């Protein structure tokens, strides 16, 4: 994930803060997300989540409720509408908590969302700042939501396990990427404590402090990692592994952290990577160019390393196959990228 704010490199740095926050809160089961703003702010996001969840074979609608602000609420203040909506959300069957997101409009008129949330509703109500006009991005919305949710958990006894922090829930390969990290951890006999958050139950969040290590989805989540470190004393690794050597060094780093002998795991993973490269030997010495679309430095480096491992020849763009560069999480993610490359070469 790039920290370069140029639009060409940084789609996640341009999006709506509210959508970033919703991508997190909608993945906490047994909760309702209240979007305090005009109804359009929710509608647009429900459509987006519904479509992306269908890709993931989840045929349910996200639990989103809008306070449905009108011009009248803007003039006289929207706090009453918020109070009413939280009340409705809190009494829905099976709801353990209400997560409240703010929008541009309520940020502009200065509704005191935090104080309305601190009233008594029978279940915990968590305010999350997500008014986009303040200059925040999709990523800030995600981070704010994760930090607010982390604030509901208390430090607890730890066990030898790992948390997965800040999965990109709208990413097409979110599940595959998680499975790959889980597989790599299993090579070291390390279980996942909780996914913070991806289809995670409200009660599970209380176990957030039980892991001994946090693995962030990407470096843009470092502020969240720092917060968790301060609150639970849990150190973090800043990114999912990228590419061939990135995957090996990830295994090495995690093994060293837990004081495990990782040699067997590393040998196993090396063998897997060699086998994979053999399967793609038809690509050897083909002239290609790498096409970078919304990919960060790490992803480019991983792609260049992979191209070198296959002896690909860098040709003049326009005269040879254009290979897409995308996030290649672990060995499996690298393999999926190789399949795309093969399609590009044989197209």
């Amino acid at each position: 994930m790039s920290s370069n704010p140029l639009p060409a490199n940084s789609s996640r740095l341009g999006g709506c803060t509210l959508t970033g926050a919703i991508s997190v809160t909608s993945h906490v089961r047994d909760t309702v997300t209240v979007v305090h703003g005009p109804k359009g702010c929710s509608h647009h996001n429900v459509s987006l989540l519904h479509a992306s969840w269908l890709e993931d074979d989840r045929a349910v609608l996200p639990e989103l409720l809008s306070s449905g602000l009108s011009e009248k609420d803007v003039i006289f203040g929207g706090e009453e509408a918020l109070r009413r909506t939280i009340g409705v959300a809190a009494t829905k069957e099976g709801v353990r908590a209400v997560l409240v997101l703010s929008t541009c409009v309520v940020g502009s008129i200065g509704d005191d969302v935090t104080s309305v949330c601190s009233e008594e509703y029978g279940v915990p109500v968590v305010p999350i700042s997500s008014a986009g006009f303040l200059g925040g991005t999709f990523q800030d919305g995600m981070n704010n939501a994760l930090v607010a949710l982390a604030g509901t958990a208390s430090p607890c006894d730890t066990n030898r396990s790992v948390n997965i922090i800040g999965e990109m829930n709208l990413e097409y390969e979110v599940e595959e990427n998680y499975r790959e990290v889980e597989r790599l951890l299993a090579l070291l006999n390390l279980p996942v404590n909780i996914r913070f958050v991806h289809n995670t139950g409200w009660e599970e969040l209380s176990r957030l402090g039980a892991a001994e290590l946090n693995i962030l989805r990407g470096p843009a989540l470092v502020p969240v990692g720092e917060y968790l470190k301060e609150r639970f004393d849990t150190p973090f690794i800043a990114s999912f592994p990228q590419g061939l050597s990135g995957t090996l060094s990830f295994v090495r780093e995690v093994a060293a952290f837990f004081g495990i002998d990782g040699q067997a795991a590393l040998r196993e993973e090396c063998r897997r990577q060699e086998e994979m490269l053999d399967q793609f030997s038809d690509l050897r010495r083909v002239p290609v160019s790498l096409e970078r679309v919304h990919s960060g430095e790490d992803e480019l480096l991983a792609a260049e390393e992979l191209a070198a491992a296959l002896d690909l020849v860098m040709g003049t763009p326009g005269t040879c196959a254009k290979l897409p560069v995308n996030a290649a999480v672990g060995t499996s993610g690298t393999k999926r990228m190789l399949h795309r490359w093969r399609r590009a070469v044989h197209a």
Partner: protein
Amino acid sequence: MKQIALYGKGGIGKSTTSANLSSALSHRDLSVLQIGCDPKRDSTRMLMQGRFIPTVMDLVRTRGEAGVSLSDVVFTGYNGIRCVEAGGPEPGVGCAGRGIIATFQLLEKFGALEGDVIVYDVLGDVVCGGFAMPMREGYAQEIYLVTSGELMSLYAANNICKAVQRLASRVKSKCRLGGVICNAKGQPREEDLVTEFARRVNSTMIQYIPRDHIVQQAEVNQKTVIEFAPDSAQAGHYRSLAGRIMDNSSLTIPSPLEIDELESLAREFI
């Protein structure tokens, strides 16, 4: 139809001046509409025998926009003057500026903005786009600044000049500064100071209104000076203001002063 707006520092006497001006205009056989554009809603009280009339925003809040009609928001007060109060949210919540915009849209829809003269009496400072609404295209084309010779009051007046200047620069904008009304506090050389201030911002002092206890006397009797003491000298000043405004053809784009210019001007007249 003549549409004018009075702006100036809070507490400087805009509402008193507006109500007396409307009264004086009504005696020239003109059909007058006064619109209070301040959530405090006390602009038209002296025209309504001390009554706080329901505001447009109160009615919208309790009945919804569909339940409000023209006759609910316009009240006839002293000498046939039609009175409207925009109103707004409770202090500290919501957005009063948006309330002003909504009020204007509703009055427009009702066709309420008619007559010979409309007097807009606006909140102390142009704090946001909503309170510049009366200056926008289609509404007041003449802005009058109400100020005393006190520095804080001149400072506010100068700030409003900035708003008028900005709005005047817009395409098709007809918003202009009509003049400066000196509502005196009774400090020495006050008239000279305000006259000079008006000249420096590219305008004129259109009327000097001296400080007079009769204003307070009229107010405790819940009347304008025009109604309470029509033969007083003070009533004469308000009638003079009404006449000058009706005859005024000197509308300008103001040139606001820098803050040190303003302060050195005030020092010259100490």
